[in-house]
């Protein structure tokens, strides 16, 4: 069965070679009978593997849990794991391999926006489906991506008012790594700060991956701010918090309020440097529910590391597989576009609570939370939004729940201009 299909494929490739191969040519011949193949594409090597390996692990764990309960549509899910090697070129190449050669109906992939941007053309041109688990800057309205991480409004719309009203801090020093996400977060922050009666005194960036914070912290010291809003990512975070303390600053007087600092970075810097600082995320390892505690236990057992930490993107990597499974079950077939259509409006009880895919923009309803970091490296959750809030990827341009920019019809660019 399989072999004949392959020879047909070859023959058709031969005939297609001379002319232009039609982009959607091979889709219908995708699946073997007994398994559903899916792609899992994260960096297993290179600098980003620090975090991405844990995302791949969480994805694989979800797949194995689904398989243990009978799979989906009576079939087992077979993950095809590839290595993005922390390099957008490799991501692009491996995504093509998964989509075109392996003909998977869905790929769970990518941590950074840069890698997502590099694989995007593959999914859009080949009408395939990407599940993307990371919080990101927004401004994307692809019909071929399901976004299960937070967008700026889900991290900031409760955070900034809380900083101003509850913490009583008014003068913000905004600092970030120099790339899109921190810059867009800064943009949204500024809007929210002004709306809530605060002010920002500076908006500064450091090269991504640079960990020389001496000058920056010195600037923070002399800027007269009373709160630091950090959109710093990756290993830079560690050096930042250490420099902060070592230049004699304290979170009690001048707290760092971060949008990216997660359990991973806290563990790497040593919790003593972060005690008293804050982070806003929809998920924290410390969420005090049985569902989450069990999730953490299962994850630690799965990766055979009793000290492994969980974090927001990891949790999204996990629950998005279940959303996908529900969509496949609803669609009744494992094909990209039917899955995409079926995933709209899917709901699931994730470790962080209730999540739902917004049908209009394929982003996820999430519950914003604020945590204060403790000496044990865990966040103490001190503020939880009463309910999940709607994802607004274009919030920086005034997108509201009533006035969506990205809908099933695509992006309404006229609204962007306004």
């Amino acid at each position, binding site marked *: 069965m399989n072999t004949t299909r392959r020879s047909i494929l070859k023959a058709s490739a031969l005939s297609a070679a001379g002319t232009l191969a039609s982009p959607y040519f091979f889709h219908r011949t995708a699946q073997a009978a007994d398994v559903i193949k899916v792609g899992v594409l994260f960096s297993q*090597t*290179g*600098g980003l*593997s*620090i975090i991405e*390996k844990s995302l791949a692990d969480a994805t694989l764990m979800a797949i194995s849990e689904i398989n243990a309960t009978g799979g989906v549509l009576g079939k087992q899910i077979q993950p095809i794991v590839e290595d993005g090697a922390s390099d957008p070129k490799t991501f692009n190449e491996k995504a093509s391999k998964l989509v075109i050669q392996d003909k998977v109906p869905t790929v769970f992939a990518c941590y950074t926006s840069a890698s997502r941007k590099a694989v995007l053309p593959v999914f859009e041109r080949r009408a395939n489906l990407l599940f993307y688990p990371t919080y990101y800057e927004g401004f994307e309205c692809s019909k071929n991506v399901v976004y299960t991480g937070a967008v700026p409004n889900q991290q900031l719309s409760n955070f900034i008012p809380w900083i101003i009203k509850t913490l009583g801090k008014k003068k913000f020093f905004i600092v970030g790594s*120099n790339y899109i996400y921190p810059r867009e977060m800064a943009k949204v922050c500024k809007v929210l700060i002004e709306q809530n009666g605060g002010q920002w005194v500076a908006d*500064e*960036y*450091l*090269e991504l*991956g*640079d*960990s*020389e914070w*001496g*000058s*920056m912290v*010195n*600037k923070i*010291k002399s800027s007269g701010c009373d709160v630091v809003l950090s959109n710093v990512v990756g*290993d830079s975070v*560690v*050096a930042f918090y*250490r*420099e902060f*303390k*070592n*230049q*004699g600053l304290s979170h009690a007087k001048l707290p760092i309020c971060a949008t990216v600092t997660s359990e*991973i*970075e806290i*563990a*790497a*810097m*040593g919790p003593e440097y972060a005690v008293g600082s804050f982070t806003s995320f929809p998920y924290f390892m410390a969420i005090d529910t049985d569902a989450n505690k069990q999730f953490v236990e299962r994850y630690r057992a799965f990766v*055979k*590391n009793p*000290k492994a930490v969980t974090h927001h993107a990891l949790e999204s990597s996990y629950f998005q597989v279940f959303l996908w499974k529900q969509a496949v079950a609803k669609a009744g077939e494992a094909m990209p576009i039917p899955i995409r259509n079926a995933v709209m409006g899917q709901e699931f009880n994730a470790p962080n609570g209730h999540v739902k895919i917004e049908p209009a923009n394929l982003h996820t309803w999430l519950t914003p939370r604020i945590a204060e970091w403790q000496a044990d490296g865990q966040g103490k959750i001190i503020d939880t939004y009463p309910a999940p809030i709607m994802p607004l990827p274009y919030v920086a341009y005034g997108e509201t729940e009533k006035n969506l920019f990205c809908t099933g019809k695509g992006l309404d660019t006229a609204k962007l201009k306004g």
Partner: protein
Amino acid sequence: MAEIIFIGLSLSSILLLVALGLAITYGAMGVINMAHGELVMAGAYVTVLSGIWLHLNIIAAIPLAFLVTALIGYLIERLVVRRLYGRLLDTLLATWGVAILIQQAVRLEFGLSFFGRHIAGLGVGLQNVTVPEALTGAITIGGVQVNAFRAFIIGVTVVLTFATWLLMYRSSFGVQVRAIMRNPNMAAACGINVQRVNALTFAYGSGLAGVAGVMMSGFKTVFPDMGTPMVVDGFLVVAAGGVGSLLGTILSAGLLGQINGIVASVTNDILARAMVFAVVILIIVLKPRGLFSYRGR
């Protein structure tokens, strides 16, 4: 202003710490050791591991890291570099391969991860080094509040630089090294065991990288890729300073560090970094042999 100068000084000392080892292996031996950054990384991991397994603090880890990385350096010289003395640009490529191997060794926990074994302190993740209480926070020197750990790094750099100067210019070993640097054949003819001296010189330069790694571990985060950007900075410093001149390396580290610090505080960090690259290019273009060079003519 004093704070800005101090930060510049600190940046200089960090550059110098990494460049010092290169000033030996590249400056004196001409070997373009792209694995130097990985030796820094190895030093940092020695700190992590000795903290976890031997409960040593960061200061006690200094000699240990020196020995371990010196040994790794010795092995690199014996196994790889020694075969390439005739074609020094090739050392760049071979040691780049070595760098990948060292990174992967740490990431894959020397291959044990394939067998499901994990060693605490190795692997892909970020590692944490505890810094003694005395070295955290700020101290006040002459009315200026400075970062204690940065001050510590400056101190260590001064000591290492002095030790290196003693070794290179005031010891019989240094005489031999400098003799080989000028003319290896003549040095051999004078009865110097060139191979042995080369191996030991390389080991010493690598050991310095290890100490740099210990310092970095208390300052930045420890992970397998941490060394790559450092080796680039290191080479820029040594090349701008003048190959083979310890004084040149010191001055160029001082200059680049201060430029970085001052530009960063006046404008921003991105521009400061761009400025450092531009200054290095300018120095090499204007003075192709660097600020200082041992070749008089």
